């Protein structure tokens, strides 16, 4: 078992630091138990399980840092790791951007661990997959999917008295269901800390339904369309935005957050006023650790409020350069939505395209955050408030910055991967060519 309790991890790390003779020393201990099953053509193709635990030690003299890692935990090995990191630190070049370690911090109790997930064993995993395969077989369809669950911990202690610990669980599932003729395909995916929120059966039924309804797609002309993005499709695009919220890149002039003539877009109205973006480690639907890599506490942070950029993230080094407080970048992103259901959004659409998901998304131009990619696994034509027929997939070239200025409506927020996002109705979304892929 690679999962140590807060006290067990503390005992090992205290011992590690007792061997230290450097100016500063930090030791991190982490472990993961995980298991997975992969299947295709309604049969398991591979299955695996792994249990890992490792310790890394960084010692510092002045601004010279050396690190070592081990996966053995007897006293002699711990001591050797400390000595090795000290030896390396003495010989390393100075890191001009090194920041002294933090002292003790206070953290909120995180919500990232769920017993329901930690209890998953190979038999439960096999059952979860069997339900998915059965959902496909019942409809004479073919399922290919991947189920992965993990339980992990991470603990960090430094010579200035900081100790941080977090324990987390995660289960992620994705399934593609296709008809036997290869003319229709559906997909769902999601991940949760709490496995009781995941049903492989109901998710597989959604994918099966899409496989059937997407068959026999017709081609319509590419161009600018009103689109309704299901939460998965919306999260595929908006997930790119927070990468630009790094103050240093913006200050240095190499991000879409940089401003003409110098400076940043902090304080500017960059999105439609219905768009707000925040992160909150204690949100029960999207919990995250309450501390980040170097020990800074993670708190609820507003990044965008009513379309205005409210915060950029500052590393401790860059904050010191700029004379501001450090602000860690966030894990997870929350976009509050409205009250419309997906059905309401379709009903109010005269002519548009319903998108299940996007695929193979790549940055085309970081200056505008222009992205390209394709629709996949269920794209439908809407006219006069109703879905008319499935359509062939499109390639898009669109920037999520521009897209979030073209908001028509937002639905109810739900979890999609590591984002809480509403379904979105967006006007003038740019499709540039057709694809024959199914």
């Amino acid at each position: 078992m690679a999962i140590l309790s807060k006290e067990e991890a503390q005992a090992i790390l205290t011992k590690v630091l007792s061997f230290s003779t450097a100016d500063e020393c930090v030791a991190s201990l982490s472990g993961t138990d995980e298991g997975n099953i992969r299947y295709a053509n309604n049969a398991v193709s591979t299955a695996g399980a792994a249990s890992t635990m490792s310790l890394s030690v960084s010692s510092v003299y002045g601004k010279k840092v050396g690190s070592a890692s081990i996966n053995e935990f007897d006293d002699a090995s711990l001591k050797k790791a400390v000595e090795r990191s000290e030896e390396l630190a003495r010989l390393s070049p100075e890191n001009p951007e090194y920041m002294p370690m933090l002292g003790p911090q206070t953290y909120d109790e995180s919500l990232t661990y769920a017993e329901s997930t930690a209890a998953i064993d190979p038999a439960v995993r096999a059952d979860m997959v069997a339900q998915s395969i059965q959902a496909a077989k019942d409809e004479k369809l073919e399922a290919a999917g991947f189920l992965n669950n993990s339980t992990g911990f991470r603990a960090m202690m430094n010579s200035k008295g900081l100790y941080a610990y977090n324990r987390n669980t995660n289960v992620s599932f994705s399934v593609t269901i296709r008809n036997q003729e290869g003319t229709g395909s559906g997909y769902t995916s999601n991940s949760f800390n709490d496995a009781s929120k995941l049903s492989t059966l109901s998710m597989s039924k959604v994918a099966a339904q899409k496989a059937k309804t997407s068959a026999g797609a017709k081609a319509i002309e590419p161009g600018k369309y009103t689109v309704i993005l299901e939460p998965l499709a919306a999260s595929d695009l908006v997930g790119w935005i927070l990468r630009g919220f790094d103050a240093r890149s913006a200050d240095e002039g190499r991000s879409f957050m940089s401003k003409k003539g110098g400076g940043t877009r902090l304080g500017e109205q960059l999105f439609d006023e219905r768009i707000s973006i925040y992160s909150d480690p204690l949100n029960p639907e999207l919990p995250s650790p309450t501390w980040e890599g170097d020990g800074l506490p993670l708190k609820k942070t507003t990044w965008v409020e009513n379309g205005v950029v409210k915060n950029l993230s500052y590393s401790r080094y860059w904050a010191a350069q700029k004379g501001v407080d450090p602000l860690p970048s966030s894990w997870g992103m929350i976009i509050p939505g409205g009250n419309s259901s997906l059905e309401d959004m379709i009903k109010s659409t005269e002519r548009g395209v319903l998108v299940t998901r996007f695929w193979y998304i790549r940055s085309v131009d970081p200056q505008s955050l222009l992205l390209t990619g394709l629709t996949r696994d269920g794209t439908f034509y809407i006219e006069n408030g109703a879905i008319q027929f499935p359509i062939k997939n499109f390639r898009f070239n669109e920037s999520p910055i521009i897209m979030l200025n073209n908001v028509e409506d937002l639905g109810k927020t739900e979890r999609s991967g590591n984002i809480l996002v509403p379904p979105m109705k967006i006007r003038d979304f740019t499709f540039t060519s057709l694809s024959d892929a199914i």
Partner: protein
Amino acid sequence: MKRKDFLKLTGLSFGAYVLADLPAFAKVIDPQAALDRIDTSLKKELADVALNVAKSKGATYADVRIGRYLNQTIATQEKRVRGLQSTESYGVGIRVIADGCWGFAATDKVDKDNIAQATALAIAIAKGNARFMTEPVRLAPQKGIGEQTWATPIEKNPFEVPVGEKVELLLAANQSALDQGANFVTSNLFMINEQKYFASTDGSYVDQDVHRIWPTFTVTAIDRASGKFETRDSLSAPMGMGYEYLTPGSPYKIDGVPVTLYKDRYDILADAATAAQHAKEKIGAKSVDPGKYDLVLDPLHLGLTIHESVGHSTELDRVLGYEANYAGTSFLTLDKWESKNFNFGNELVNVVADRTQPGSLGAVGYDDEGVPAGKWDVIKDGILVNYQTIRDQAHILGLDASQGCCYADSWNSIQFQRMPNISLLPNKNSRKVADMIKNVEKGIYIVGRGSYSIDQQRYNFQFGGQLFYEINNGKIVGMLKDVAYQANTQEFWNAMADIADEDDYRLFGTFFDGKGQPSQVSAVSHGSSTAHFKGINVINTGRTI
């Protein structure tokens, strides 16, 4: 310590700092320890434990991979070292067939007891999963080949070069770019050594020593007044070579082309200086008018288009649906291959799969199923003639042997079908790039890999690049920006109008090609000569926010 003193240090001096988390099972090592070897007779003894346990517990087939995967990465930024890490991952993976089904288990405790336990676990997994099986595994025969060895033919082991010397080279490249007016520059050097031992119940014992290297950088130029920035990446290729790749040779110049290119020797200092000039020039370059253009594509660019549209579409596991939930399937369905007349491209298009090509990333002596490396046609005179297969797929194509495309990225990953080097053959007749450009009335010459995206069945793609030059009436007249082209795979390869001869042939490579769940990486090369494509749709990617 002063930088100068630091640079004098040998490899003994460094472990790691400030790089991202280690991959599971990898540990940081003294770079000098990378030069240690594990005795082959010990590996054989350990492998036999697994094979004997597997047979005694009812396996009809078993293979063992004892792998030591060494990885050294050096990352720098302007005048400082951003990260420097040497890691080793060492362990054993055992794969068995029991009750007609595959089972796999791995351990990082490389001793007889743990290997025996892992083998028993692999058999238990095989038997447990047999209930989900639709038909038993059918392996193509592979005769035992006895004890064999193979090593990448390198001149200079990168792991023997002192770390200080490698750091100095990267920092010098950064300085070279800064001196030419770059605002920012990051540079990296990736070095990999796979020491792989394979044994199977067929009677094969194969010891291999595989090397790969990739020097690369990104130079950024910024224009504060306009708020614009542009980057230019290095024009190196990742190679299946040693450190000799970084010994500058003669650059490769093409008449009428304003870019210095490289073949099997790379001059990082010269390229970094040119990159800074290019990045600055890009800021003021003309934004492309969208429309149809003839494209003249340099091998360093075309390699990625070959990779995505030919390499991935001819992977048999994709064709069969095994990658449906992740990478996708393929438009090259079996009926197209069976027809023997599927027109993938025009008759100029000849593509080979080749695991023997010297200097390539995919070159090995044997694959991770002990199958000897080979070479075969995939597209012949424009017609689809073959795929890429492994032992449990060969029967589907009626082949009596695997094509040797099995690979795992670690001892603890399950080996599966991965792409061999897939390369476009050059013109058999003498054909110079300069003469090809003279034939283009309205076109764009593209160098280097840029943005890329392709659908899940490999029909529709879009590619950018590093450098774009406008061709007008047979001459390159200036730099363009905001260029991307879109096409359909079959239409694109049927639009190939011309290709240069073997004097222009060069290797493109990709170091971290992802596939599978859990995802595994592999490295693969794609050779070609410069080729001319007629009437391809070009879009303008410039936007204002």
